[in-house]
């Protein structure tokens, strides 16, 4: 029989027809733009493209690339799929994201003949981050199960290593946290809220973030939520997973606060407060991402009873 698309990859790899590749390209672009649209229409994202230190954008892109690799590995790693295969897939994801970002920015008139090289690449570099996350999401989660052929059937057994499951969930949590907080991070509001909030409000915000992300994943009975988990590793326990996922959210939040230049010349309290405030958004993203992972598609079957 003809080999069709392997689950969890944005691109087809060896053995697929050009027609299949074309369909997956279009799906990737659509998925990329779906997540990339809000930042694309955010003024601060355009301005940060040339106001930010260029190397900070590089750091964000490399961080995103690692998440895309981790997500790809978690969702679609199979015996016949080699690391070079996976890396090529992720390079294509990032490259397509850059091309889609460039084209979209040109269409909305944000880059053109009068645009400086650094300005153009800075804008493209920032916008390709959410777009690349959208492309890998489209490859792993949004694909029509039909397209995965009969390979989808044996998915559950393929990723049964529990250590990898818990670790992989954190990758997805980081990716979703990055995506959601990137929508908010470049705007003034996080700084405004951080400066305005007193310390006990910040403590309450931390408590609320933890409580909400615990409730979303383990209590509220969302599709993809988990009541009983396998509890094979320390990270499989709801309490530890919630705390560690919140830690990942705060890390992502800190990375963005630093990237968007909100740490220079800022008192330590205001920096921490910004991280906590942006962490609310990141924690919601991390929780939603872990739900998505549990709700079927690739990568499921790891705890849903």
């Amino acid at each position: 029989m003809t080999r069709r698309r392997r689950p969890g990859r944005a691109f087809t790899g060896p053995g697929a027809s050009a027609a299949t590749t074309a369909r997956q390209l279009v799906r990737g672009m659509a998925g990329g733009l779906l997540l990339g649209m809000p930042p694309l229409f955010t003024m601060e994202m355009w301005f940060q493209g040339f106001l930010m230190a260029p190397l900070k954008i590089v750091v964000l892109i490399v961080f995103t690339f690692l998440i895309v690799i981790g997500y790809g590995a978690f969702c679609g790693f199979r015996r016949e799929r080699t690391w070079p295969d996976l890396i090529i897939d992720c390079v294509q994801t990032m490259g397509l994201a850059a091309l889609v970002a460039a084209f979209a920015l040109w269409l909305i008139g944000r880059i053109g003949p009068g645009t400086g090289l650094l300005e153009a690449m800075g804008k493209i570099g920032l916008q390709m981050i959410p777009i690349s996350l959208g492309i890998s999401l489209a490859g792993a989660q949004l694909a029509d199960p039909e397209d995965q052929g009969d390979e989808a059937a044996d998915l559950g057994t393929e990723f049964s290593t529990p250590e990898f499951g818990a670790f992989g969930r954190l990758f997805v949590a980081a990716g979703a946290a990055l995506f959601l907080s990137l929508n908010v991070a470049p705007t003034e509001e996080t700084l405004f809220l951080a400066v305005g909030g007193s310390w006990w409000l910040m403590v309450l915000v931390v408590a609320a973030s933890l409580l909400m992300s615990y409730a979303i994943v383990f209590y509220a009975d969302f599709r993809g939520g988990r009541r009983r988990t396998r509890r094979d590793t320390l990270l499989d326990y709801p309490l530890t997973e919630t705390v560690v996922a919140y830690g990942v959210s705060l890390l992502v939040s800190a990375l963005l606060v630093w990237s968007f230049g909100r740490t220079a010349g800022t008192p330590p309290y205001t920096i921490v407060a910004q991280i906590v405030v942006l962490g609310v958004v990141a924690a919601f993203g991390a929780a939603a991402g872990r739900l998505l992972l549990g709700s079927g598609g690739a990568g499921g079957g790891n705890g849903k009873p």
Partner: protein
Amino acid sequence: MESRNRLEWIVLAASLVAIAAVLGVLVWEGFGDHGRPPLPTVALHRARAYATAAGWVLPATATNKGDRSAQAVTFIATARVRGREEEATVTVDYLPAGSDVEVAFGFSAEPDGEVRVRIAGFLP
């Protein structure tokens, strides 16, 4: 060993070029010499000037020839109009390094002689 189809190769090649372009420019600029502060300049386009009911409009292109972006760049154009000194002020919110922004200065009528432009200030 199965081979990838041609479209896959094209996507891969285009991806590598796109990533190399984005990262190349950002890393090169990042490690490059940032000794040059913002250098806002203005090129006046007198040949494209035109009269309106509310005055005379002089199109111009603001360019930042420095390595760093500038915000709130304010240019003041001065000229002698009907024997009196006149000032026209334009503020560019964001002037990225190496980029052009189209602006226009306004005077009550066509100036008699040369139009001079100076920077009034900006946020580096």
